[in-house]
């Protein structure tokens, strides 16, 4: 009996010591390796923190035509009348754009304006399209002259936004601070890069989400999960996806508006294993339509088409439209 107890005691002791050893820091799940400015600042005293926090804010002048990927503070100061200016904002797929007016010295009555658009507009075509965006078009433009100080911070609904501005007088201008917020379930996305991979998840929401790649690419769908796995009604239909509430479609076109693009393929059954397509258009979009009854998920990757692949596509196609294979 005494021997058995000491064996049990030894087992307990060994287990205890093992746990201590593991928790000492050998478990990779507990360690944080990311060094961010915020973490560094938190180690310093308050005076040094104040001095340095300013240094970490990126600042530069805003240009009449500009594209901003970085966070920071941007000032536009007109040195002459600038009547047609616009800046694009874009973040990572899982980010939202937040724009704060720090200062504005413009003459609204004199025809100056600053308007922030929730999305991108190019040649009269907007992304996301009206079908895919939660707000009507008139709500997607926020006019500084109309809203004034009541809306100092404007947040986008996806990873892209734009600002349009017109300044008549030299010396007038404005300052904005751009920051990014995390979006746990990205819906509408424009890819910053011609290559990458992404998993789009729509968690039981009735909405349509588009992933836009503004390059000619080969897109490969690795996995698609639509609906309940046990739902046998969601099987391959020889008549396409018309009438089904949950499907994924591939679109191609030369504009931003997905509602004006041409569908080239649609998928309304779950599968895994790559399905790929080369699309030699200015814009390739993967769009998921979700009824809201299920959790739908699609994983895909894409890469830029090389010049010889583009030429081959163009050689194989007689139409004067962008090419695909």
């Amino acid at each position, binding site marked *: 009996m005494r021997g058995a107890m000491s064996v*049990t005691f030894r*087992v307990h002791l*060994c*287990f205890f010591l*093992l*746990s201590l050893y*593991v928790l000492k820091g*050998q478990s990779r*799940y507990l360690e944080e*390796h990311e*060094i961010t*400015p915020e973490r*560094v600042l938190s180690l310093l005293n308050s005076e040094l923190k104040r001095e*340095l926090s300013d*240094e970490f804010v*990126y600042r*530069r*002048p805003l*240009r*009449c*035509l*500009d*594209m*901003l*990927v*970085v966070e*920071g503070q941007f000032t536009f100061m007109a040195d002459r009348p*600038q*009547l*047609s*200016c*616009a800046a*694009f904002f*874009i973040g*990572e797929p899982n980010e939202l754009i937040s724009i704060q007016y720090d200062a504005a010295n413009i003459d609204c009555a004199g025809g100056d304006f600053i*308007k922030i658009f929730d999305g991108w*507009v*190019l*040649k*009269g*075509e*907007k992304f996301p399209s*009206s079908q895919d965006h939660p707000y*009507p*078009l*008139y709500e997607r*433009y926020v006019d500084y002259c109309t809203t004034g100080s009541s809306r100092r911070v404007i947040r986008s609904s996806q990873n892209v936004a734009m600002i*349009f501005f*017109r300044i008549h007088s030299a010396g007038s201008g404005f300052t904005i601070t751009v920051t990014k917020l995390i979006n746990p379930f990205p819906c509408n996305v424009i890819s*910053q*890069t*011609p*290559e*990458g*991979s992404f998993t789009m998840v729509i968690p039981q929401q009735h909405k349509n989400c588009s992933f836009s790649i*503004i*390059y000619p690419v080969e897109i490969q769908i690795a996995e698609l999960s639509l609906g309940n796995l046990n739902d046998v009604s969601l099987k391959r239909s020889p008549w396409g996806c018309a009438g089904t509430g949950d499907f994924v479609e591939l679109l191609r076109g*030369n504009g931003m508006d997905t509602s004006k693009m041409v569908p080239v393929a649609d998928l309304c059954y779950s599968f895994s294993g790559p399905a790929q397509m080369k699309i030699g258009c200015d*814009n390739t979009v993967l769009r998921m339509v979700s009824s809201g009854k299920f959790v739908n998920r699609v994983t895909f990757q894409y890469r*830029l088409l090389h010049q010889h692949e583009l030429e081959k596509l163009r050689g194989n196609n007689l139409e004067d439209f962008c090419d695909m294979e």
Partner: protein
Amino acid sequence: MKLHLLVSIAVLLVAFLPRHECRAIEPPGALPAPAHQPALQQQQHLPLLVRLGEEYFVRLGDGGRSQSVIPATSADATVRKALDLQLTQRLLQSKVDNLSRFVSSLAEPAERGRRSEEPPISLDLTFHLLREVLEMARAEQLAQQAHSNRKMMEIIGK
């Protein structure tokens, strides 16, 4: 006893499974920092379209009428004109739309919807130029990240 054994095995697996080497996360398709970066910063005040150093198309038009397309070079006068990238003058058109919408408030909802779907302000820019400015912005982000990392290392080193 068996429970202890199972838990011990689980703990051992957690502790001693081979780990992947830590490495910096690189976004796919990350561009290398351009070699001419100091020059890029010096040229920040130059018009953007001159830096692109290639032809671009400027749409000059108004009020939604048919627009002429002029290929431009990087000459100064043309650049100045080009910098007045004429936003399609839907601003004026939208004011007209607002008026007519107010007047025809009994119009069919579909018709009203179609009219209101036209973005009042838009930018005429080719996809090619859009990609160019996007790539320049990404290069700026890489440069800013490198600068930020350098600053942090200086702080840590103090």
